[in-house]
């Protein structure tokens, strides 16, 4: 639906229409200009995770996990030389800093999300503990995925801060903070949460925001129910394990039936045990969904940013038109707009022509400034829209592709589970037949 409706009504201020052909062209140009994607030039791995314990500022023990990032020129492997990769250690909070920097620096782009900070949507057997090795492992994969996403983004991959994140362990943090992004990050957060009303909202962005809300809601629901389904499935399989023991005990009092019962019991044990692997595999599917759940936040942020820009544009234009009106009034001597100055001058006497002259000159100056500023803002908005929409289209294609792949691999998982089930029960049946 999103892709099909395209753009119809555009906002009064600033938006230009891009045809699909132009969008395609722009994309190609972008890639050409910025050179080949970092993704192609460099192999990136988050190879390991390690626990570190340090004494923090208040002299208390603090344990955290660090991840080893390995990089290597992509053509090294093909040349057959296979040099050792460059590597450095980063902790999760540093990834967060990187991402916040990117969000602030590229507000028009859909910035890839990080894997979740805390385990959510867990089914009961899975640990919600951040230190749990399975969680750490899945996070390692998620972080690697994040880096690969950024490295394969036509614009983000060229960012210098990102590059140094991968290549320079020491001093990176200081360098990032020196850019002053932190202040921007704070105001960005405030702005995203502020309430304001745009007079002429852009339909495309409004629809996109609505879509991201719906997608967020449905994926959350899906993950919740899936976790419950996993729980139940676990229960069904595990209870079958009890057959193993009772068949064994029963076989002890039987003569001819004994062997068949006993071996069938073993198959029931195997059946019960098989669910652990099945559900572990399914976690991968859940992680794929989660990535897109978190992506919706980034998508929504772009739409909100656009809304904010448009609001500011509207305010600025409003301001300008008010000032122009004041100018007119001063020129013609009629007071149409109420102003305190006007009232006081009425009460306390007219101002002198010199005073009026000065006022008009000041106003003229302000209007000129404001007009320039508005022009800049308009250009900024245009650029934003162009860039954002390009990236949104790119994101949409990526999303459709990835989710389809995820569904395929989910179906394959289910097929594998069914085949295993058939195998076990067929084996058990053979044993029963021998009873």
């Amino acid at each position: 639906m999103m892709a099909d409706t395209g753009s119809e009504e555009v906002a009064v201020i600033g938006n230009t229409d891009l045809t699909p052909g132009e969008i395609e062209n722009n994309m190609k140009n972008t890639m050409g200009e910025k050179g080949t994607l970092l993704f192609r030039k460099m192999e990136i791995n988050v190879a390991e995770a390690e626990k570190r314990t340090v004494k923090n500022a208040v002299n208390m023990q603090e344990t955290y996990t660090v991840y080893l990032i390995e990089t290597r020129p992509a053509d090294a492997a093909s040349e057959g030389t296979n040099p050792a990769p460059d590597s450095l250690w980063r902790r999760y909070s540093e990834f967060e800093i990187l991402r916040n920097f990117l969000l602030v620096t590229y507000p028009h782009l859909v910035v890839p999300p990080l894997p979740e900070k805390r385990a959510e949507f867990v089914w009961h057997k899975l640990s919600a503990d951040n230190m749990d090795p399975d969680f750490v492992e899945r996070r390692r994969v998620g972080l690697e995925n994040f880096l690969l996403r950024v490295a394969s983004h036509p614009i983000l991959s060229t960012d210098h801060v990102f590059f140094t994140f991968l290549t320079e362990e020491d001093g990176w943090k200081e360098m990032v903070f020196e850019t002053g992004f932190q202040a921007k990050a704070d105001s960005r957060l405030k702005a995203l949460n502020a309430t304001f009303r745009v007079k002429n909202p852009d339909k495309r962005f409004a629809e996109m925001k609505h879509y991201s809300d719906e997608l967020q809601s449905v994926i959350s629901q899906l993950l919740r129910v899936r976790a419950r389904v996993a729980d139940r499935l676990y229960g069904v399989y595990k209870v079958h394990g009890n057959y193993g023991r009772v068949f064994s005990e029963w076989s002890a009092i039987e003569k001819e039936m004994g062997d068949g019962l006993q071996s069938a019991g073993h198959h029931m044990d195997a059946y019960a045990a098989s669910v652990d692997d099945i559900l572990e595999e399914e976690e991968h599917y859940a992680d794929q969904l989660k990535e897109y759940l978190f992506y919706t936040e980034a998508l929504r942020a772009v739409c909100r940013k656009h809304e904010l820009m448009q609001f500011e544009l509207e305010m600025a234009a409003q301001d300008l038109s008010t000032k122009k009106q004041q100018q007119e009034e001063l020129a013609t001597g009629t007071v149409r707009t109420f102003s305190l100055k006007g009232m006081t001058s009425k009460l306390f006497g007219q101002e002198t022509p010199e005073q009026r002259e000065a006022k008009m000159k000041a106003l003229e100056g302000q209007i000129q400034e404001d007009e320039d500023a508005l022009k800049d803002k308009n250009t900024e908005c245009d650029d934003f829209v162009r860039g954002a929409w390009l990236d949104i289209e790119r994101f949409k294609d990526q999303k459709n592709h990835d989710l389809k792949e995820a569904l395929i691999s989910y179906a394959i998982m289910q097929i594998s589970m069914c085949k295993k089930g058939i195998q076990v029960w067929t084996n058990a049946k053979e044993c029963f037949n021998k009873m």
Partner: protein
Amino acid sequence: MSASTPKTLPTSGPKSILDICHPLSAEESVRTPSPDVGNTTGSIGEKDLSLPNGTPVDTSSPASSSSLLNRLQLDDDLDGETRDLFVTVDDPKKHVSTMETYITYRVSTKTTRVEFDLPEYSLRRRYQDFDWLRLKLEETQPTHLIPPLPEKFVMKGVVDRFSEEFVEVRRKALDKFLKRVADHPVLSFNEHFNVFLSAKDLNAYKKQGLALLTKMGESVKYVTGGYKLRGRPLEFAAMGDYLDVFTQKLGTIDRIAQRIIKEQTEYLVELREYGPVYSSWAGFEGSLQEPLEGVSGCVANCAGALEELTEDMSDDFLPVLKEYVLYIESMKTVLKKRDQVQAEYEGKLEAVAFRKEERTATPTDVEKCQDRAECFNADLKADWDRWQNNKRQDFRQLLTGTADKNIQYYEKCLAAWESIIPLLQDRQENTKTETS
């Protein structure tokens, strides 16, 4: 004594050609202990699954054809003799009168035995009648193991006595009961059994024997109270021990099966919520719409298959376990009676030997007791062996049937998921050529 002289044992032998049903005719439960005639109503409850794209799922599979073989498999203990008595219970019908509402079942008999006036009978009987029959058998054949009936009492609020499911489960159990009796070399010649199968007005016949009926079913001729058993012969002690352990294990298996049903039911509830989420997602997607709807349909199919599996477990598995528990209870009673008969014999023997004044016993008394004891032991031994054999077959069928149902369940799910793979992958190739 109504135990007639046993003829040369007619056992479950090869069916006569006319009576072997075509394998593709209405299927019956896999629980019957012997090849039976006239398949009962009701077919495999396989719903017609259709896949998201509309093609019906093909559920004929190696598993289904082997369950076919199960049905055709003849008994292990063929001994070349043809059976001459075939009984079937089917066609349940509801009767509503001013006084009560109840179900009757059609009892059909085909026989060449001279003890029956006609070669064929078809009558209607209700549970009460079966209950009466069993009581009479217990009374008149106390040395034999009488097969169990399905439970008499059902909690009125909890179970619907007139639901199709309940009636069908009961019908199968009643059918099995009669078949087991018909198969028995001694019980099948019992006159009450004969009347049950042939009399138009059973109630009139019942009234005749009313005066002699006692609550506990202890025959007047078997007053054996008051004697203490000295020592139980090993083989009967072993029987008792076996039954004790076996009952325990059956109880455990019953609990496990019920737990599985409960877990599966809860799993089903979640699945029924899970599938529709994909559908609602599809509702606001563009190119993802078909794949998502496909997955939703798959989950729905799997849920349907699971529902069938759980129903089958409830309907076919649990009742058999319950039946055997009841069977074992009545067997233990028979074992106790045997003990009492033996005790009486030993007691009287002792009295005569030592001329004790407390017990009046004559040498003829003692002889009678000895006969009685020996007959009892012989009957019981024969029945025990027969019971062990039938039990083995019953459980083999029960468990292979359960395995089959699980295999079928997974096969249905497999078919559903395999069918959407091409659906998902096609679209993948298409999007590469589309611009958006």
